[in-house]
């Protein structure tokens, strides 16, 4: 039973301008009576309320810096909310960044194991899935090579194969699929549709507005940390396009 429940979630954090202050800078700034390490207050999310259950497929669209990835990471449990109520039930599989969580010096096979263990698998369960994951990624001999030599597309193939083979109850995908080639994007779309037919929960961030309505039933439009529109994917995408382009959009055949 997968479920994501967010009630009036807000997330604020302070980012220091200079990431880490050395002793010398500290003394110099103190001497000149300047603020030692001034911070910028970031209101990443404000008043987010969402209720998702089994079988929901949510798409998130919005401008760069709207808080889409932050919201996804909050759902995954990486960022704690500053205020509000959050309940996430179900095993989570997330794809946030192509290179996140890969050990560069290890081969593709080893990385399948490490990422599998990271998602809670045991050696026995991952051995059964090893060949299936390798086949889906279509990387063949490249799996014997250290991952540091992979291209971005190869890494995303591997990452997606692992993340979706684990049979998670909740699948969180940040805008990573764009790096794959056309054949892979078709494969990924089919795999995601399979997952959805198994009544799983999926949240997807994408800038590809033509494919998003085919994958997601609902969508939200994020603007400066707030939900500006929520509803059926087609409608929200159309509203967003209208606001950005100022014209009536031509939608691809659904």
């Amino acid at each position, binding site marked *: 039973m997968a479920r994501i429940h967010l009630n009036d979630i807000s997330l604020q*954090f*302070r*980012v220091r301008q200079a990431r*880490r*202050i*050395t*002793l010398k800078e500290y003394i110099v700034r103190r001497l000149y009576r300047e603020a030692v390490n001034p911070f910028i207050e970031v209101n990443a999310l404000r008043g987010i309320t969402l209720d998702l259950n089994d079988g929901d497929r949510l798409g998130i669209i919005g401008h760069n810096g709207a808080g889409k990835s932050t919201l996804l*990471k909050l759902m*995954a*449990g*990486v*960022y*704690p909310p500053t205020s509000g109520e959050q309940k996430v039930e179900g095993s989570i599989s*997330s794809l*946030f*960044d192509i*290179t*996140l*969580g*890969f*050990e560069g*010096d*290890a081969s593709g096979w*080893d990385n399948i*194991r*490490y990422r599998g*263990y*990271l*998602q*809670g*698998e*045991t*050696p026995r369960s991952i051995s059964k899935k090893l060949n299936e994951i390798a086949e889906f990624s279509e990387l063949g001999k490249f799996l014997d090579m250290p991952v540091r030599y992979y291209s971005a597309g190869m890494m995303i193939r591997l990452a997606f194969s692992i993340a979706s083979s684990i049979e998670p109850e909740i699948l969180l995908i940040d805008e990573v699929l764009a790096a794959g080639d056309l054949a892979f994007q078709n494969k990924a779309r089919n795999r995601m549709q399979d997952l959805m037919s198994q009544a799983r929960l999926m949240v997807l961030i994408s800038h590809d507005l033509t494919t998003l309505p085919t994958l997601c039933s609902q969508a939200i439009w994020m603007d400066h940390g707030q939900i500006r529109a929520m509803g059926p994917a087609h409608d929200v995408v159309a509203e967003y396009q209208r606001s950005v382009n100022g014209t009536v959009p031509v939608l691809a055949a659904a």
Partner: protein
Amino acid sequence: MLGQLSTIWKFRHFWLSLVVMDLRTRYRRSVLGVGWSLMNPIMMTAVFCVVFSSWLNNPDWRQYGPWFLAGLTLFDFVRSSALSGCTTFFRNESYIRQCPLPLAIYTLRTVLGAAIHYLIALGVVLAAVCVLQPHHISSMLSVLWTLIPSLLLLFMFCWAISIIASFMTVYFQDSQQILEVLFQVFFFLTPIMYSPQMLKDRGLGILLQLNPVCTFFELIRETIITGNIAPIWAYQKAIIVVSVFGAMAIGCIARLERKLIFHL
């Protein structure tokens, strides 16, 4: 806290596989392999025995060599746990940004790697004692079982130090440099090269009391070299040391873990 420990146990395949990978990567391209990590302490022992033997009143190198090596490798274990702990969160940043695992797992990875090196070095010390002092073998073997609780306590101590150092470095960048200097000074204040008696004779016995590493010297080094089981007060002191540092580590985790991601 118990919830964290059970999560850490649940993800044991993850950090165990990373420890194995770290060990393999470290010696992938070298000829001697793990032997390299032993070279440094063995060479230092050889140098000290040969060069400084006259300075330290001509001790018998057959006795002094293993004694010095035992102390040096233990100190190295504590030192490398603390210093590698400093950069743990930065090295594992990609995992921290992806999955909300207990942060203690990442320090466990480095401390376990250092522990394996230490155990290999300890093996060398035991072998040295067997070879250089054959009359001593039976008494040493009879007390070896007492090393198991001592080593467990030492491991927990190093893990606690690693956690404290890792949180410190995120908030104060200079922590790593400061710790390096402190350990240099610490090396000479700890009875590794000289016997604890030399400090007591000069009225500096208080340094021995305050030094947590000395407790583990009593438990591990003296047991191997003298073949006597360590006294009860040494175990009690070790438990106190582990409790104090463990409490500090748990305090760091309880207060700082949630918001750490914002400071990375």
